[in-house]
């Protein structure tokens, strides 16, 4: 059972446009939602993360929007650049009552930004 559902599977955006990737979850015990960015041949790198006590978090051109009631969160990349072309993974984790901090990942979105 997929704990975190991610869409779209692939996304093509023009340079300067806005890239939007969406994720949804069912487990209301999740309390930490990171996004990872992965370039070909590399491991995923933490991009930005949010906790459910805020509805939005912005770091540079990257913004996470979080809707707790809908159990959805999304990544917005403003002014998308060719260098943003990568695979993006959303994830979720339950921190309380767990020393492991296991992450549940979406299946990834391959973003291509055309120059």
């Amino acid at each position, binding site marked *: 059972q997929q704990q975190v559902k*991610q869409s779209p*599977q692939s996304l093509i955006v023009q340079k300067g446009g806005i890239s939007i990737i969406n994720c949804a979850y069912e487990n209301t015990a999740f309390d*930490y939602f*990171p996004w*990872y960015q992965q370039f070909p*041949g*590399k*491991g*995923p*790198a*933490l991009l930005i*993360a949010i906790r459910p006590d805020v509805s939005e978090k912005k770091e540079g051109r990257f913004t996470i929007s979080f809707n707790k009631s809908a159990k959805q969160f999304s990544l917005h990349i403003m002014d998308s650049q060719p260098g943003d072309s990568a695979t993006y*993974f959303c994830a979720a*984790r339950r*921190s309380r009552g*767990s*020393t*492991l*901090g*296991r*992450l549940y*990942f*979406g*299946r*990834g979105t391959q973003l291509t930004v055309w120059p």
Partner: protein
Amino acid sequence: SQTIHQWPATLVQPVGSPLSLECTVEGTSNPNLYWYRQAAGRGLQLLFYSVGIGQISSEVPQNLSASRPQDRQFILSSKKLLLSDSGFYLCAWSPGLHSNQPQHFGDGTRLSIL
């Protein structure tokens, strides 16, 4: 600062041969350690995790095993590789005893089985 190393970066092995992939973490102690397999379009599948030396938990029954002989060393093994073991294997770590800290990944091993 903490760093994670995985080797080899690429590996080509015949079916039925053994496997040993190694992962080490530097700059921290008592980390949580993880092995993932990544298949195209299927995201990251957690294979094993460890919260301490000799403590291994398996998420998916399979042809693989893991061991943690030292605090910052995590090894993925197989006695006989199958074609289906091909994939991109990633090791990750997070600070132990602090489940609210992020996971950090190595650069992976691309394993091809012929």
